[in-house]
């Protein structure tokens, strides 16, 4: 009887250990300490990862589709619906990988259409995103009432942005809460690459120097290591390994760009009630490297939407 009791205690300990591991590893863009030990960091941002071993919980965050679309618009770029993934393609996606990638892609296209008041496209792309979410079994992430609310507020950009943000939050949190971090990472990758694809395609090479949109594209170099770390946490998953290998090609091109940043000084602005982080940055992106980046991104994006 005593022996049976001991066995029960051992198994109970194992169950508790399992639970701890489960609850520690299933939240958004989050990694365990072990995964973070093998970081591959470019020299520009190497120092930021040096203290990483201190924390048990690490979040890697990419610009969301809404933020990417806002960056494109704030750079003064014009809307071009030919750059979006046609909604007719929704029927081509049946694997978890293609559904996840295109959930991110359609959400980015939806965000882009929303910020440029493309009313019919907003409805179409919300339905396309819903179709991807349904395919992934993400329950109730986009409900009919969301689409109805969208239609009722089709000229109210603020409400539309709120709905887009909410649906993206729901899909990510659903995947994270249901232990599908790998799929969540693929959704984030799809959204990020689509933003980069649209940006690179919108750059007018005749207006390359001093182009604000080119500046925003260079900024994505700061996010590529975050994305590699995020995907790196789920290596071994066949779909992730494929995506990781493709994104590595984008990193190879970004590694050809040097960013030099002056030390950051934080100053509080009493009038605006905001802290201003003062610094200056210089980069050496040439048209040739930009072309290589643009071509690489276009090629990978074409494979994602195929």
């Amino acid at each position, binding site marked *: 009887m005593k022996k049976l009791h001991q066995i*029960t205690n051992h198994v109970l300990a194992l169950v508790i250990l399992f639970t701890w591991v489960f609850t520690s590893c299933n939240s958004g*863009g989050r990694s365990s300490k072990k995964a973070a030990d093998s970081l591959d960091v470019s020299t520009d941002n190497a120092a930021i990862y040096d203290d990483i071993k201190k924390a048990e919980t690490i979040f*890697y*965050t990419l610009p969301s589709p809404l933020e990417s679309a806002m960056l494109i618009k704030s750079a003064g770029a014009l809307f071009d619906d030919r750059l979006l993934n046609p909604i007719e393609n929704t029927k081509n996606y049946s694997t978890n990988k293609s559904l996840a990638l295109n959930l991110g892609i359609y959400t980015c296209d939806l965000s882009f259409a929303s910020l440029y008041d493309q009313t019919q496209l907003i409805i179409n792309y919300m339905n396309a995103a819903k179709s991807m979410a349904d395919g992934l079994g993400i329950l109730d992430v986009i409900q009919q009432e969301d689409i109805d609310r969208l239609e009722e507020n089709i000229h109210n950009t603020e409400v539309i942005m709120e709905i887009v943000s909410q649906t993206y939050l729901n899909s990510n*949190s659903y995947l994270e*809460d*249901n232990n599908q971090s790998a799929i969540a990472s693929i959704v984030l990758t799809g959204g990020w690459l689509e933003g980069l694809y649209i940006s690179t395609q919108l750059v007018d090479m005749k207006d390359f120097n001093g182009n604000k949109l080119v500046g925003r594209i260079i900024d994505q170099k700061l996010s590529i290591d975050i994305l590699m770390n995020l995907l790196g946490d789920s290596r071994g998953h066949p779909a992730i390994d494929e995506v990781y290998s493709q994104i590595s090609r984008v990193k190879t091109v970004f590694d050809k760009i040097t960013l030099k*940043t002056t030390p950051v000084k934080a100053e509080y602005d009493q009038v605006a009630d905001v802290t201003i982080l003062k610094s200056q940055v210089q980069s050496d992106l040439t048209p040739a490297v930009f072309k290589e980046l643009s071509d690489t991104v276009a090629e990978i994006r074409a494979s994602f939407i195929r």
Partner: protein
Amino acid sequence: MKIYRNLSILTLLVFISAMSLNAQCKAFAKRTCLPELGSYTHDGNYHAAVLVEGEEAELFKTFYSDMDYRLSICGEETIPQVEFTVYDANRNVLYSSREANFVRTWDFRLEASQQLRIVIKVNAASNQGNTPASGCVSIMFGFRIKQ
């Protein structure tokens, strides 16, 4: 045979409990943290975790020079105060909520885009000997075009 049945029930209960904690965390993030973004647009990303007192979490994110940002960090009432510190790429401290009376939000803008590291820590309570408290901590970002 009975032991296997009991273990199956126990495993199921533990699994349901873990799922319930996650759902609770998401509900807390949406109910408590999201409204603190105020007039800023939530970026749509979800970062929440159950942390134990004394535990730290880190977040890496790129922030852009064209935007105004609000960072909102909330912890459930079951845990002691949550503090956060923002570092630049050279590990310099740019902001510490401890020096601002443990505020839950921070508004900032950047002259040049930067990757920042945010370290979140649940302070340890002084009542030693008791089981460490745990609760949900949520991190949210709002943005708007620089005004």
